[in-house]
């Protein structure tokens, strides 16, 4: 492995043009990842035709690098302005933005930079060590029933995040699940709750909903404070997390690497579930669950470690089996095909040099996040010094463009503002925005896999429990729910 890695490194840095492509991918991924609605997918779609003129290794490597740095890029705006660049950065905003309000933006961004790099590098190392056996294990042991059980577990854990009471947390998750049912059902394609609007047949898109619930509702809240004289501008904090703080979170990092890797390796799932699951696990293992959502460093660490840990893992089913884990890895298939290659087991035998240059590039791209991210942090934090009356319209404009550009539908802009108003009202009454977003994103994945799982077990729910991984996850979720009910009744503050 080491020999191959060194050969990949030599091939990567031995050619100035390849280095230039690598640097372009690192910076491009970060920039596009940070712009809401545009995302790394937009950059990838723009670049796709141009990769035909590149060497196969250069083209695939470029996309792999964009994937790594783009997954990190959206963390910056999530932390500084409550605008996640992509759904996989949404959990980063849960605690990252409250940290910014408390003057700890530097610490939050620093943690995101460091943990994205750690998660990505760890993932790249495991990817290099055991791509083929891991892919074969995952494909044989993880099917729709297991993915549904994982989502159920995640929802059970995360329902306690961010609400003023446990009941309100659960109500928020249920609202998110209800929103997730808008659109066509995953089995029969029957329209639900579209009220005659064709565009709603596609359901509520994640990006405008997230922009509305996070960014727009935040602007409304700050505007109200400004109007009532209670406005408190976010403080620009430059303190990076200390080595001791990071060491204290070593288990959170390790846990998120495992969670992110596990989610990333599942075909068709990818970094979004990884980020939510990483965050949810941090909550589950914490002794101070109620602190999550109020600006807890561990929240940022967990989600950013997990989503980058998923990037290397998502390459495993792609490279070993030819099964892309998400939209960007699916585009990578097109890059392979442009050069008459097919990802899959044969690529390891036919093009080992291509595989190892890609592995090496992903490793170094994650390291680059560390260095470029730290430089970026020191400059970008000054954006917070822009007065609210200038910053708010700018964020609204950015969010509106982001909502519209992802699908080019006016409906998405309406969804964004609708979510902003609903989010504003719910936040005032103590409901949980993270809970709603969790319900919305995990609900779609969960319903799809539940329906497939039920078909697979011939509508015999009991069969779910004959699958060990499924049983463990459902039992853990049920236990979490039971504990929540107990806490809700035992604590007077949770009864409201």
């Amino acid at each position: 492995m080491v020999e191959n890695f060194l050969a990949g490194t030599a091939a990567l840095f031995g050619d100035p043009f390849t280095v230039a492509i690598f640097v372009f991918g690192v910076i491009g991924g970060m920039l596009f990842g940070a712009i809401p609605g545009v995302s790394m997918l937009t950059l990838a779609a723009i670049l796709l035709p141009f990769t035909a003129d590149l060497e196969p290794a250069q083209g695939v490597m470029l996309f792999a690098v964009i994937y790594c740095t783009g997954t990190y890029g959206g963390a910056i705006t999530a932390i500084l302005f409550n605008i996640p660049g992509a759904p996989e950065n949404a959990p980063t905003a849960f605690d990252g933005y409250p940290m910014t309000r408390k003057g700890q933006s530097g610490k939050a961004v620093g943690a995101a930079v460091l943990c994205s790099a750690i998660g990505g590098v760890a993932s790249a190392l495991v990817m290099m060590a055991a791509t083929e056996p891991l892919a074969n294990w995952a494909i044989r042991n993880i099917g729709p029933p297991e993915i549904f059980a994982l989502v159920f577990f995640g929802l059970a854990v995360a329902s306690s995040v961010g609400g003023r009471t446990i009941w309100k947390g659960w109500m928020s998750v249920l609202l998110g699940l209800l929103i997730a049912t808008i659109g066509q059902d995953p089995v029969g394609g029957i329209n639900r709750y579209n009220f005659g609007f064709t565009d709603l047949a596609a359901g509520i898109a994640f990006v405008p909903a997230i922009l509305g619930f996070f960014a727009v509702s935040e602007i409304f809240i700050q505007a109200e404070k400004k109007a009532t004289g209670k406005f408190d501008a976010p403080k620009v904090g430059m303190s990076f997390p200390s080595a001791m703080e990071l060491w204290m979170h070593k288990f959170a990092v390790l846990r998120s690497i495992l969670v992110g890797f596990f989610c990333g390796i599942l075909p068709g799932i990818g970094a979004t579930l990884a980020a939510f699951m990483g965050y949810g696990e941090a909550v589950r293992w914490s002794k101070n669950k109620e602190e999550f959502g109020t600006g807890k460093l561990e929240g940022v660490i967990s989600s950013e470690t997990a989503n980058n840990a998923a990037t290397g893992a998502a390459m495993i089913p792609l490279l070993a089996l030819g099964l892309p884990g998400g939209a960007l890895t699916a585009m990578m298939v097109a890059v392979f095909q442009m050069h008459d290659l097919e990802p899959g087991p044969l690529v390891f035998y036919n093009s080992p040099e291509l595989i190892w240059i890609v592995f090496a590039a992903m490793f170094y791209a994650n390291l680059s996040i560390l260095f470029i991210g730290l430089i970026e942090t020191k400059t970008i934090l000054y954006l917070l010094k822009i007065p609210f009356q200038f910053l708010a319209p700018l964020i609204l404009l950015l969010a509106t463009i982001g909502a519209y550009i992802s699908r080019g539908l006016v409906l998405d802009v309406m969804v964004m503002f609708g979510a902003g108003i609903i989010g504003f009202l719910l936040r005032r009454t103590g409901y949980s925005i993270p809970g709603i977003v969790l319900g919305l994103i995990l609900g779609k994945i969960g319903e799809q896999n539940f329906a497939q799982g039920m078909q697979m077990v011939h509508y015999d729910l009991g069969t779910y429990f004959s699958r060990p991984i499924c049983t463990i996850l459902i039992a853990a979720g049920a236990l979490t729910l039971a504990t929540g009910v107990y806490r809700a009744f035992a604590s007077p503050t949770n009864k409201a």
Partner: protein
Amino acid sequence: MNRLFGIGVAATMMMVASGAANAFECKVKEASMDKPGGFPERALTMIVPYGPAGGSGQVAAAMAEGVTGLTGVAINRDHKPGGSGTVGMTAYMASPADGYNVLEHIDDASSAHALDSSKPNPATDLIPLVISQVTFSQIYIRTNETRYNDWESFVAWVKAQGGKATIANVSKEGSMERVTMKFITDATGMEIQQISFDKGAPRYGALLGGQVDALFEQPGDVRKFLDAGNFKPILTIFDERPSVFADVPTHREMGMDFDPLLRFRGFYVHKDAPADRVKWLQWAFQRGYCQDSYQAFNESKFMNVIDSYRDTAGARDLITRSVAQYRDVYKAMGMDVK
């Protein structure tokens, strides 16, 4: 139903014959055409009702490359996925009918119109510029499968499971996959649970990993698994054996007397677009099909196994026959045909 099958057989024969005639078009050396009144003066927009990474996204990219290579006119692709193509179709119908907007769509548009006539009919509400991919379906099993190894042993095994066998596909109400599977189960008397996946990777992973017992798909989509020796077809749902699958029996050979429904992808313009612009677009897209880059793409996707080309008249014929066939089948299935 027998009458329906009879009509279907005739329709398929005509479709194949019509396709064979149209395939000759690529030999016509008509490499240039004057732009009518300077049209197009700017880039065209192609609305694609599916994501960029799937089969439709790829065919849209390949055709755009072919047309741009031929004419020098850039084509911006605007992906509007959702609702099995209805979101993109609605967006397209609302866009200006000035010839600058073209639509990529698959046979879902025809089946959707057959089920609900208020939805646009691709043969009359739109003008087909070209249909550039026509393909058939097959049923696949794992190559290392030990429980069965051909269609007959598969059917016997499925029957022995008492309804507990599974097949992965992209079935939705009224989809080509679901209708075809009804034909197959009716004809064989077997009962099999269809499991619908909306994305390719989980669908193929389900077969690779043994989560399902078989897969319903088109050969171009699983070519890499065929080339790698992971999957093997045990049934071709087409009237004759394509030469590259010469050792795979057809459904008719296996005693199933139904008309195969084909998967087709094509490009359209609004019927109200100016006639001279439509004529230029027809020329550009039909010649685009003949470009080397597009032909290489189709070949890589097994889309040259049967004739994949239909010009405007051929496309209208294919769509009209498909709509009628779907409508009859839906009524026979007791579905609410509007």
